[in-house]
């Protein structure tokens, strides 16, 4: 009742009471944004050790996440680089099985048919020669094959798989007719050969090593093979000319169309007995496995971040309890509840952002070190760095809500009582 009645009286009192120099009502408590900023900063500077320890949790969480994402993207960048260099246009055709599960070899003319598909640029084949081993010398026991296989290769194989020679030369029409062999990278290693020119014991004959291949990412089965020419294979081992694997490289844009045509072309009678695969997909799939692992680590990182956020909230709650008098003083100086709330909220955000910033830098450095050690090019998406800082600001804001509300609830009389 008194309030409504008193209103006009208030006005007159106002007019008489306030000295002429003072600005007119309504006056309000105002806290400038710049002052809010220095208040938050001041709160942290007052207890630097505590601020550092509280933000450490956040820093570790965000550093873990950034380095995990950074390392994974950096390694992926390398794989992508390699794939781009190797090309994703390689398809392999292998012998499948027939309806009854028996092996269904590829027909003898398959390679020639594939070469006639529009868009096919290179094609080559290998035919594994069962029961034939390659040894360093005649003295080696036949059972110690070293996991190596012998295959008859088509001269087009090198261009089709994109394999490169470390040493020596590839098979040509002439050498394919003589006992000459090109060794895969692993095969050469296991036979203890680093250069072409030596003789090896292959299928009961001496073969001259004329070339050694580099590692092949897209056709890793070549690494453990000893490749000989088809004519000599036919002559010495009765090779019938039907390939086990055909490698085919086509125009990048036509890969899908070629892929659709391959089974029917290779074996028109039974296209379902032909298996077609794309080795670059296998590499990409390996990457996907890595991504699952990355997801796990990011999950661990977010738990660290959560724990860090709880640490910030805890520190701020304690800080509010300790600073009851400061809060009371500020209230007596004219701070509204909102001002107190903002001050503590901002302090929590600042605390968390500090940790976020430190963690982001740390994560980046860890990524740089890992990339440097593995020879990757450093590729941390800038968005991840920005997101890292933004996430910590959000964590700080959430962590600060409870302490800020408690601070605002602190009685204004706190400065007087004790």
């Amino acid at each position, binding site marked *: 009742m008194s309030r409504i009645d008193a209103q006009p009286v208030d006005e007159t*009192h106002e007019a008489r009471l306030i000295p002429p120099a003072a600005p007119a009502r309504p*006056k309000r*408590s105002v*806290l*400038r944004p710049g*002052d809010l900023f220095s208040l938050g900063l001041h709160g942290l500077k007052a207890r630097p050790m505590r601020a550092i320890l509280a933000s450490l949790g956040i820093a570790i969480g965000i550093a873990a996440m950034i380095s995990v994402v950074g390392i994974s993207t950096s390694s992926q960048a390398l794989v992508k680089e390699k794939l781009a260099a190797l090309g994703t246009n390689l398809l392999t055709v292998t012998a499948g099985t027939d309806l009854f599960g028996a092996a269904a070899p590829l027909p003898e003319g398959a390679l020639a048919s594939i070469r006639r598909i529009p868009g096919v640029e290179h094609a080559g084949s290998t035919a594994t020669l069962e029961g034939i081993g390659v040894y360093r010398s005649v003295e080696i026991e036949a059972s110690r094959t070293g996991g190596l296989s012998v295959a008859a290769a088509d001269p087009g194989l090198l261009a089709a798989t994109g394999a490169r020679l470390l040493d020596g030369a590839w098979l040509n029409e002439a050498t394919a007719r003589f006992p000459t062999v090109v060794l895969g990278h692993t095969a050469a290693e296991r036979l203890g050969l680093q250069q072409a020119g030596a003789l090896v014991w292959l299928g009961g004959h001496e073969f001259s090593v004329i070339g050694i291949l580099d590692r092949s990412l897209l056709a890793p089965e070549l690494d453990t093979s000893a490749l000989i020419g088809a004519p000599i294979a036919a002559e010495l081992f009765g090779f019938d000319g039907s390939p086990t694997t055909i490698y085919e490289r086509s125009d990048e844009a036509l890969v899908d169309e070629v892929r659709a045509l391959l089974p029917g072309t290779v074996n028109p009678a039974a296209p379902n007995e032909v298996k077609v695969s794309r080795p670059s997909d296998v590499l990409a799939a390996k990457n996907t496995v890595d991504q699952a692992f990355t997801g796990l680590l990011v999950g661990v990182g977010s738990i660290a971040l959560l724990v860090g956020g709880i640490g910030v909230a805890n520190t701020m709650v304690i800080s509010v309890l300790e600073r009851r008098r400061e809060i009371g003083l500020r209230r007596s100086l004219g*701070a509204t509840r*909102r001002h107190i709330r903002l001050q503590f909220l901002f302090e929590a955000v600042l605390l968390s952002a500090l940790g976020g910033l430190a963690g982001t830098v740390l994560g980046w450095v860890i990524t740089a070190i890992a990339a440097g050690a593995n020879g990757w090019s450093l590729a941390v998406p800038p968005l991840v760095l920005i997101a890292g800082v933004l996430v910590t600001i959000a964590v700080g804001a959430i962590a600060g809500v409870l302490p800020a509300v408690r601070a605002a609830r602190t009685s204004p*009389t706190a400065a007087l009582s004790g």
Partner: protein
Amino acid sequence: MSRPVVELRGVTRSFGAPPTVALAGVDLTVDEGELLAIVGPSGSGKSTMLNIIGSLDRASSGTVRIAGHDIGGMSDAELSALRAYTIGFVFQQFHLAEGVTALDNVAAGLLYTGLPARRRRERAQRALEQVGLGERVGHRPHQLSGGERQRVAIARAVVGEPQLLLADEPTGSLDTRSGTDVLEILRGLHSAGTTVLVITHDNDVAAQMPRRVHVRDGRIVSDERSAPAGAAA
């Protein structure tokens, strides 16, 4: 006849359940430009009175008017504004921020008026000169004596030129000489026109005031005035 700055009408304040009565019906009028002491032993309700006059606490019943405003129905923001512009507080424990210069401590008294920092510092400089600490603006609280710290706190309370200055045991933590200095400054502010209300349990301090309101068990037991010259006694 002066205008009232503080008007309490039938003010009570009780806490908890069953209620403990801290103030049991207080009527008090303080006119503009007065200097008075509210005196009483601890537990007499004088601190509760200060909280209510300072708008830090609300009365359980009765009417409280500060500078003409009935504060009973005011929102938190309105009460805060009242404290920012109209009321200045001096505390027994000073409540200065450590590691912050005297100048910035005093300037903090204007923080919630939204004045730019430069203007706040200018006025803080003048307020410090007013309490005789113009030479010590750059000192931090630990470099100042107790009396000097309380003078900084007074400067902070008056930097906004409030109509009403509330001092809670301003000499309670000081030796006699520093206490005398502080009371001298409060009297000086009073002569300059500020209404000064001192809360104390110390009858010697109260005796130096022209008006003494004695409180006991939540009631005013006496309200004595002496001639303004009594301050010199």
